[in-house]
């Protein structure tokens, strides 16, 4: 681009005008370190004049120090940003690069090819219009090529260029290239990938990267750059779909203005068009599309806009504005595909937050139907999902949400999973469809409710939840508390971990997944008993914060009293009458809390009992006093 400028002084305005007409393509490159991926991107940047002189100086310095090209410029080093990675010679995260051709601007997500970094590839691909898959012409289609392709199809990248690299090392052989292309197309058809263009290239020598060159005259297709210049942009497809806009923020500068802001996920909007707000289902029309530059006559997918409606209806963040004649579905149970991104495995039944569009809803994966082996694409049975695991699951949310299948619209069908304790983004998911069951199970209305039952008993129902290590004294103390309540005339029930495992939870073991389910069932039973008007004492190890938080969330404010029976491990071990710690120490019991399974102490319990400094009787009195302070006991 600088060449054009030098020849024609004064042409800058025209140049800027042309620049402004350019559109934006986001793409991702996949391949392993050895396939020459970084070299290819480095080459694209270099050919597009985007490597600045001082970067080149740094590159020459680094090439001498870390380079793999024997002192020649190593383009790969332009991309590997972090110091540690540079020294290891690998890329370990998503890096974004920017360059431009005569026609388009490009944002490249460069992601690593190592198996353990599936997460990064999914992340990089989630915003990509297209993908470039590199294979080494000498090796052809490898397991990792298939893996990357499967991930691209999973995340819905519609257009793929298969760049067969290092053609210079196989004498630019057409036969070898065609064989690789055939094999790849056969595989791709099996995973539903449709739009594939195979391009023979040499990133090192530059053949078919920006222009065709003469060494592969037998190839009649586009060079990689012309492919990138012409491949379809996803926003054009989305603009053709029915209107969707998740409401992001309500703009109320004064009482006379109520603007609904958001980015249009699909479709086109004009003032006067009818819309339906989901999940409420209320219909109205768009009055104005307000912007800083004046009202707009039209707005399309990908624009961030501000709408006003003709009627003063209640709309808030998280609602989805839809074309009235083609609204989104609304449901609370789904079949989804999940990619797990956390070191902590996904546990069915555990409560997570699910962010879809601008709405964040609590919920749980109720069942893992099967996991998918990313190398063989085989279905495998799974009870949990580990880092980089992929599975088809049932998802149940606490509230019904508007959505479209992910395959139709990533913005209204894609979601992230947030761990409620660590706040990390633990996974990403894609809605396939709503499960019928969601529409058919309704809550039955009952005339006699919790307050009526409680009033008849003359007490306030509540759950007193004892948590602590095995042998901490939970059951002993809970038993004493129940005795005291009983003597005072309260109606109670004690749910004890060991007892419940003999019956209701007989089918559960001691894996993390089973522990989560164990607590989920007990919490639900406790909730029913509270509904029946009882004071429920729960004595369970309940090692995880998120499950105790779940139990708390099932009840109304003030109904849940968390009692932390705080006994240090050595003391609990010494008191152990059942000999369990000893067995665990000997390795005869595995998954034993405190020994080889974690216990997460409460952060802010209503009551904390330091059993080292008090007797069981004193501890029970402390709980009674706390129940009185909390207003749960009348006497």
């Amino acid at each position, binding site marked *: 681009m600088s060449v054009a400028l030098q020849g024609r002084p004064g042409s800058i305005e025209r140049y800027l005008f042309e620049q402004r007409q350019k559109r934006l393509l986001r793409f991702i490159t996949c391949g392993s370190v050895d396939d020459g991926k970084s070299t290819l991107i480095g080459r694209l940047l270099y050919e597009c004049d985007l490597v600045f002189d001082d*970067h080149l100086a740094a590159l020459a310095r680094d090439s001498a120090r870390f380079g793999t090209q024997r002192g020649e410029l190593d383009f790969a080093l332009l991309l590997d940003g972090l110091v540690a990675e540079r020294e290891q010679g690998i890329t370990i995260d*998503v890096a974004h690069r920017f360059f431009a051709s005569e026609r388009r601007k490009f944002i490249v997500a460069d992601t690593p090819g190592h198996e353990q970094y599936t997460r990064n590839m*999914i992340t990089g691909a989630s915003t990509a219009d297209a993908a470039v898959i590199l294979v080494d012409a000498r090796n052809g289609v490898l397991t990792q090529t298939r893996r990357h392709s499967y991930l691209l199809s999973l995340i819905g990248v519609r257009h793929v260029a298969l760049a067969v690299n290092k053609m210079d090392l196989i004498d630019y052989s057409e036969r070898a290239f065609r064989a690789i292309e055939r094999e790849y197309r056969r595989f791709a058809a099996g995973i539903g990938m449709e739009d594939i263009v195979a391009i023979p290239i040499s990133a090192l020598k530059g053949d078919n990267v920006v222009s065709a060159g003469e060494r592969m005259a037998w190839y009649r297709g586009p060079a990689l750059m012309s492919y990138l210049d012409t491949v379809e*942009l996803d926003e*054009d497809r989305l603009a053709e779909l029915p209107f969707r806009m998740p409401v992001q923020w309500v703009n109320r500068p004064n009482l006379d203005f109520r603007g609904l802001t958001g980015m249009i996920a699909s479709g086109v909007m004009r003032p006067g068009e009818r819309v339906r707000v989901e999940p409420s289902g209320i219909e109205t029309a768009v009055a104005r599309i307000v912007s800083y530059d004046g009202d707009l006559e039209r707005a399309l997918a*990908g624009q961030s806009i501000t709408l006003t409606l003709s009627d003063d209806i209640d709309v808030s963040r998280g609602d989805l504005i839809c074309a009235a004649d083609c609204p989104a579905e609304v449901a609370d149970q789904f079949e989804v595909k999940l990619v797990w991104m956390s070191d902590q495995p996904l546990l069915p039944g555990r409560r997570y937050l699910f962010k879809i569009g*601008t709405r964040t809803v609590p919920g749980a994966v109720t069942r893992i139907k099967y996991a998918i082996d990313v190398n063989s694409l085989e279905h495998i049975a799974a009870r949990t999902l580990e880092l980089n695991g992929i599975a088809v699951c049932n998802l149940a949310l606490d509230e019904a949400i508007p959505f479209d299948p992910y395959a139709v619209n990533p913005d209204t069908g894609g979601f*992230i999973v*947030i761990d409620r304790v660590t706040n990390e*983004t633990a996974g990403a998911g894609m809605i396939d469809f709503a499960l019928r069951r969601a529409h058919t199970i309704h809550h039955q209305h009952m005339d006699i409710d919790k307050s009526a039952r409680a009033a008849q008993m003359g007490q306030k129902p509540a759950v007193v939840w004892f948590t602590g290590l095995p042998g901490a004294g939970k059951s002993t103390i809970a038993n004493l508390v129940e005795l005291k309540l009983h003597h005072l005339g309260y109606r109670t029930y004690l749910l004890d971990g060991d007892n419940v495992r003999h019956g209701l939870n007989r089918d559960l073991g001691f894996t993390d997944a089973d522990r989560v389910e164990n607590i989920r069932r007990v919490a639900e039973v406790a909730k029913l008993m509270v509904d029946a008007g009882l004071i429920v004492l729960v004595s369970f190890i309940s090692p995880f914060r998120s499950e105790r938080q779940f139990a708390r969330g099932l009840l109304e404010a003030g109904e849940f009293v968390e009692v932390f029976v705080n006994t240090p491990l050595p003391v609990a071990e010494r008191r152990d009458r059942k000999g369990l710690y000893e067995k665990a120490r000997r390795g005869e019991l595995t998954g034993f809390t405190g020994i080889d399974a974690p216990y997460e102490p409460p952060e802010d319990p209503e009551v904390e009992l330091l059993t080292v400094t008090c007797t069981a009787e004193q501890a029970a009195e402390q709980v009674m006093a706390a129940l009185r302070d909390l207003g749960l006991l009348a006497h």
Partner: protein
Amino acid sequence: MGMNRADGRRVPAADLGSRTLTHLQRLEAESIHIMREVIAEAENPAMLYSIGKDSSAMLHLAMKAFHPAKPPFPLLHVDTTWKFREMYDFRDATATRLGLELIVHINQEGLEAGISPISHGSAIHTDVMKTQALRQALDKYRFDVAFGGARRDEEASRAKERVFSFRSAAHRWDPKHQRPELWRLYNARKKPGESIRVFPLSNWTELDVWQYLYVERVPIVPLYFARPRPVVERDGMLIMVDDDRLPLNEGEEPALRKVRFRTLGCYPLSGAIESSAETLPEIIREMLLTRTSERHGRLIDHDQTGSMERKKQEGYF
């Protein structure tokens, strides 16, 4: 965003007759989306306002994002007291023109200790008056989210930073434990004491920013345009003598040369370039021809490879 018609009048983007968005329109939409997401989820956000061209673009985007309301957060300028005088004038005029709250924070301890780029060098000055001062300001006003104008094309370690970049309660950045960012879904949940730096211009390039400022006619500090200015030449860099705090070496005589600045910071640390570019198109033309990347003019990045990454881990923006 708008486009210039042949007669110079601006036309709202969607009226162009085309059913597509240009790259600048998409970048604008993404930045606005990011800002609104912060406002919807943060408790007490602020915008780091450095007075430079990227800040000007970011502020303009904020005006658009929240129109007809004002941006619902204050501007925070972490002042080293060594900025160019024209920068201070521009800062105050901008806040007044747009009717926004401006908070200026200076590291008083650093000031009392007499820390300056001249007596202590760029590394210590930057650490005390910028890095530490920023932490002080965020702690003092309890800002949980701060917008910054950094772009991924500036430097290699920035290319890997997230749009929502988490800082521990001690303001540290941990490049190994960043949250994945998928689609347009940003996870803004955090624990008390933790904070987030948000970079709405992450996907913009330097050329995009200049283009945008030009198309949208956004005011910028006049120091970006070439004018005759008094400078001295040191270690191959032209340093402007902006006030009498810059000690002149023996025999050193400020000379009036036509210069401009590609990046703005503390004046003793900002190298000027000789230039004749007096308009934005001329600046862009020069930029495309000179082929020297942006931060070259800043002394602080020159220590060694990887220096920016180290600074960021310590809490530099």
